[in-house]
């Protein structure tokens, strides 16, 4: 929509441009690049008289090649019938999806799964993630269940100390036993998926230990340093109570295991406050 101007001397253009507001910059076409993306930049006046810039980005993409047999080719030229007979070209029955849909490969167990796919026993998943952390006081068996979920509950004498403590998130499914007539919210019933507690278990698996910290390093410093790799749920710096100085080590818990790995790779050996950091997995090398 270029306004034809006739010959314009450069000297006139140098003047105060207010006189030339009625002119619009020319249409620019940035030709199809290697991805086939074409950009067209146009200028026009909108209803209020303001100069408006319109950028249209288009990509022409071949979805597939239609290999049609002779018969199929004939069928292509059949007239439309039934409800399609009066369809105009603008009918939006058939549209190409705006979203790119991928064939998503399944994630290997142990890496982050964003969907609550804990099929079957949620405790089985918990057991796998934090096996070393679960100790049952009743039977002393490690890694299988917590005390309140102990299958051998009757063996040990009941301990009074735990009566006042309401069942924590770890023992959440136990109130769902038969004969109990307390209300159990859906998220805590047996077979409930999307347990929030799984978050904590997995986080401890994404825990990174940082050693050789300088004595004035504190939690905010570690957070600043590690947040660039991804969301961090918890930072901790061990501090000597008497002197107030850092004991030289701390822990950082990431949300994502991959971010924790990246942090380890990048920051191990990194010079921070005149000391070389040592960054490694906190628990003995998970998987």
């Amino acid at each position, binding site marked *: 929509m270029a306004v034809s101007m006739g010959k314009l001397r450069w000297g006139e253009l140098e003047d105060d441009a207010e006189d030339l507001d009625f002119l619009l910059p020319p249409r620019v076409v940035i030709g199809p690049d290697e991805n086939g993306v074409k950009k067209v930049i146009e200028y026009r006046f909108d209803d209020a008289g303001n100069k408006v810039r319109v950028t249209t980005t288009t990509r022409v993409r071949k979805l597939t090649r239609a290999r*049609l047999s002779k018969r199929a080719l004939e069928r292509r030229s059949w007239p*439309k*019938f*039934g409800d399609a007979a009066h369809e105009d070209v603008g009918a939006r029955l058939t549209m190409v*999806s705006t979203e790119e*849909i991928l064939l998503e490969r399944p994630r290997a167990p142990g890496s982050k799964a964003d969907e609550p796919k804990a099929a079957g026993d949620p405790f089985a998943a918990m057991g796998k993630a934090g096996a070393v952390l679960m100790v049952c006081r009743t039977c002393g068996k490690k890694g299988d269940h917590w005390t309140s979920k102990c299958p051998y509950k009757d063996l040990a004498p009941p301990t009074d100390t735990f009566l006042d403590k309401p069942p924590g998130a770890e023992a959440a499914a136990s109130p769902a036993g038969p004969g109990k007539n307390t209300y159990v919210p859906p*998220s805590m019933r047996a077979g409930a998926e999307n347990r929030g507690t799984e978050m904590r278990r997995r986080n401890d698996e994404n825990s990174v230990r940082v050693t050789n910290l300088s004595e004035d390093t504190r939690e905010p410093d570690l957070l600043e340093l590690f947040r660039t790799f991804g969301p961090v749920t918890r930072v901790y710096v061990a501090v000597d109570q008497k002197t107030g100085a850092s004991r030289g080590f701390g822990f950082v818990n990431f949300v994502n295991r991959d971010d924790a790995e990246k942090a380890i790779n990048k920051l191990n050996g990194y010079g921070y406050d005149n000391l070389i950091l040592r960054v490694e997995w906190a628990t003995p090398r998970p998987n």
Partner: protein
Amino acid sequence: MRPILMKGHERPLTFLRYNREGDLLFSCAKDHTPNVWFADNGERLGTYRGHNGAVWCCDVSRDSMRLITASADQTVKLWNVQDGVQLYSFNFDSPAKSVDFSVGDKLVVVTTDPFMGLPSTIQVKRIARDPNEQTTESVLTIKGPVGRINRAVWGPLNKTIISAGEDTVIRVWDTETGKLLKEADKEIGHQKTITSLSKSADGSHFLTGSSDKSAKLWDARTLTLLKTYVTERPVNACAISPLLDHVVIGGGQEAVHVTTTDRRAGKFEAKFFHKNLQEEIGGVKGHFGPINALAFNPDGRSFSSGGEDGYVRLHHFDPDYFSIRM
């Protein structure tokens, strides 16, 4: 992939079928009108008006001239594919659930639901070349299975009919005599109603999907259980790829989980499994409701899925699909 979305149906999809050459896609839904689309760009070619009830199943003849549809209005109708004209209507005493053309397109096997005290039946009708000579009498009627027979298909060389349904047992019947030849082993078979059955391209094996959240691959002659694919959702539809060793399974969501799972839009997926290794290859998301129909294009380069949301999604595979290694 950029799936092509086709919204030709107002009600949930029930069945999808490609023609032999893979250029037409027929879709059946609970609205009473089957549609036909061009399989390359999803453009609608036409609709078949005439049924008065949900259309459950369809099949198209090898020359793509005749379409047969089974509907809940107790009829099975024969149509001219090209112009949507109804050529013949078979009347039954109960809703018709499934149709399948035989090799040679001379016979169709039809299943009808149990209705008002009548048992479910499997019937074979002869299809005449000339619609004017069409007769309505059944060549063969089989009564036996209890409950709905969701699918019945022809076995290899039309010698047998394979049926599967609500009573979870797959049966093989002799076409000549109507006698029961084989039954699938109850122990290893499905535990809940079989919702779908799909043959391989050469007819030597077939895949059944069931509400017991699994799909099983069977040999068509001996009814041996070959493979089992386990998913987390009841299976409503299944298909075998004609090109690669893949199967695709689509399903729904258990009613129990409707409130506790997050309502993410478009999260119903069609799951791909390696046919021999039984391992999951991946999932293709996008449907807003349970997937009720799946079909592979005979050339294996695209597939379509139909959902409870009324949409048909036509996917042309990306080049890297063909080089997936397990």
